[in-house]
Structures are given as C-alpha cells and as structure tokens.
C-alpha cells in the first residue's frame, strides 16, 4: 500500500515527460515498450518461421486458425503510412510466399492477408504487422457483410479520393517530373508553331495548380470544352506521361 502515492507521482512525472518528448523520442519510447520489438530482438521467445534483414514471420499465439502467421517489419512502425515504399513492397512479396506455404503445407483452402491500420480498424499492438490467415469454408473469419453503394456516392468518392491520391503521388514525383514536362512541350511544337512561347508556359502552370488543388479541377473541366483543340491535346498527352512516370518510379 505505501507504494501507491509514489506511483501517482510517478505517473504525473511520466505524463509530463511524455508531453515534452519530441516525435523521435516518442518513437524510441514506444519501441522500448513494444513487446513485438522484444520478440524480434529475441528477448521474448517466439516461434519464428522466417527471418531476413528487414522482417520476421512468426506463429500468432492467439490464432484465428491453425497456421495463423504474423509478419512484422524489424523496424518499429506503428502504422503503414510510416513505412518506406521499398519496405512495403518487400513485406508483401514475403507475405505472398508465406501464403503459398500455408496453401501448400497446411493444405488450407484459402488464405487472407489482413492489415489493420489504427485502433478503430482493429489494431491491437503498436507494432505494424500483417496477418496471414489460413481459411476453410465456413470458418466465419473476417466475414463482414457488404452493401450496395449508390452510383452517385461512388462517383463523388472516386473524385475526392482520386484527387487526394494524385496529389500524394505527384508531390513525390515532382522533382523528376519537371524534365518530362519540358519534353512534352517540345514535342507539341509543330502543332502550335508560332504561338508556342505564349501558350506553352501558362498551360504548364494551370496543369500544376490543377494537380495540387482539387477544387480547381471542376472549373478546369468546364473550361476544357471552350478551349481550342490544340490545348486539349497537350493536356491529355501530359497526363499520360505523368502517369507513366509514376509507374516507372515504382518499377
């Protein structure tokens, strides 16, 4: 009992400490508290089935079915957005092979690869992980009813999400995209001929604004029909190149 007042004080001091911590310190603190980091270090015993320099796969101790496997990055990330692109791809390639071994060795009828990002999505540990779950007909795992989403809502959702996604992808590509934009303009030279210097520059600017703020896109599409054919050609070409460029980056 005499310990209780001490723990209260400690808790207050601890809370203040937490508030003062920088994001980097917080991450370090979270790492020290994380049981999965200790499992990865080998301080806590586990049944590891695969390990490389970036990730570890182990048997889940609270499995949904026999052969439920967890795949964790060795680095401590709490959610998926924190993980660098290169590591994400690698993790899921490993997940693919693990899924294959579940199918082959345990003769399961199917597999789920499942990720929960955030508490509301059902994430329990603060260490990001993939679940690879062997499935059998009628086992009632991850059985969530689906409902029809009306077309109007779908169109709105596609616009909102698509715009944000374009923003995300273009921000990252911007530096390498610049030379490509110039190339396109030179390709279009013969079509535009004399007017090139006047028209070409504003077109680039408008296109950039278009990508950053979704609100301008509506106005832009209305404009499109009024503008001459030549400008439309530039726009469509440029968008194509942009998308290919993003694609190349991920190759």
């Amino acid at each position, binding site marked *: 009992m005499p310990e209780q007042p001490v723990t209260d004080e400690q808790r207050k001091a601890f809370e203040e400490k937490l508030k003062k911590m920088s994001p980097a310190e917080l991450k370090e603190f979270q790492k020290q508290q994380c049981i999965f980091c200790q499992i990865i270090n080998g301080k806590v015993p586990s*049944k*590891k*089935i695969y*390990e*490389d320099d970036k990730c570890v*796969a182990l048997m889940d101790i*609270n*499995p949904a079915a*026999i*052969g439920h496997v967890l795949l964790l990055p060795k680095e401590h990330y709490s959610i*998926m*957005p924190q993980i660098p*692109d290169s590591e994400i*791809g690698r*993790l*899921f*390639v490993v997940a*693919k092979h693990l899924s294959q*071994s*579940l199918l082959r*060795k*345990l003769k399961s*009828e*199917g*597999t789920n690869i*499942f*990720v*929960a*990002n*955030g508490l*509301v*999505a*059902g994430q329990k540990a603060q260490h990001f992980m993939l679940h690879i*779950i062997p*499935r059998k*007909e009628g086992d009632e*795992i*991850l*059985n*969530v*009813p*689906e409902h029809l*989403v009306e*077309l109007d809502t*779908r*169109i709105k*959702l*596609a616009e*909102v*999400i*698509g*715009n*944000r*996604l374009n923003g*995300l992808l273009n921000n990252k590509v911007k530096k390498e995209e610049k030379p490509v934009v110039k190339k396109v303009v030179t390709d279009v030279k013969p079509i535009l001929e004399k007017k090139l210097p006047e028209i070409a520059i504003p077109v680039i600017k408008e296109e950039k604004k278009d990508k950053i703020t979704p609100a301008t896109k509506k106005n832009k599409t209305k404009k499109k029909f009024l503008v001459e054919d030549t400008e439309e050609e530039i726009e469509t070409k440029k968008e194509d190149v942009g*998308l*290919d460029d993003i*694609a190349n980056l*991920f*190759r």
Partner: protein
Amino acid sequence: MNCDYCEISRKKVKSEIVYEDDLIIGVVKDMATFPGQISLFPKEHYTIIELVPNPVVDRIFQIANKISIALFESLGVQGTNIIVQNGTAAGQKVPHFSVDVVPRKDGDNLNFQWKTKQLMDDEMDTAYLMLKEEGDRLFIDKEPKKEEIKIQDAKTEMILEKEGKDNYLLKQLNRRP
C-alpha cells in the same frame, strides 16, 4: 470466360476509377463493407496472389498504401484495413486477384475480429515445424543473388579507393603539413 475485373480493366464496364497505370487499376467498389472501399487489382488476369509476379505485388501494395493514406486524408477516417481474399474459402468473390482497402471509422460496426482458436500444443508445433521448413527454404532462395552483386561492387570500389588514395588523396594530405 467472363471476369468482372477484366471487363473493368478493359473499360467494357463503367466504373469509378481512382488510380490507373500500365499494370494496375483501382476502383471504388459498388458492393462494399463501407462506402469508399477501394479494390486495387492487376490488369492482367491472375486468380490468386501466388500467381502474381513479384514486381506487380510490390507495386500494387505500394499503391495500396498510398490509397490508404488518401483515405485517411480525404475522408477523415481514423483507420484502414487492407485485405486480400485468396480463394473462395477466404471470401473471394471475383476470380481475379485484388487488394481491398477499407476506410474505418469509430462506431462503424464492422467486425473484422476473429475468435482465438484454442489449439493443442502439438497442433501448434506441427504447423510451426512445417511452416518453418518452408520459411527456411524461402531464405535460401532469396539471398545468393544479392550477395553476388554486392561482392562485385565491393571489389571494384576497393580498388578504386586504393588507387585513388595512393595517387591523390594521400599525397594531398601529406603536402598540407
């Protein structure tokens, strides 16, 4: 053969496209666990993930992550689920591999949990041993190629460094004092 997702990627059916490149396409799902659920799939027809080439797997999940971030930021949701259903027993409805990104909100009443299955120790152990055997083989398959490349690079770098130091760097250092 009629595959709904192939029809979508060939643009034979109207769909609400969120992302598209030369290999993959992402659409807003019409039958969804939550409005705003995105299905992301390769344009090429593969039934399950095991058949999808690694570079496509690599890219599709990088884009899935970007879509997940876009859902966080555009819909203001507090979480996302990323789900692959591999085989009809796993809930796969279209025979075309896809990754589903589901936006999640507090109180959305979606139950993506599962009951813990009580296992006997020996059941767990046999599964563990079988999977470990496969896992070890996985490790062997992957490593050798990388090492070969690394060794070659290291050698050439070493030579360049040595020659460089003898010719320029060391002499310059010696001159200064």
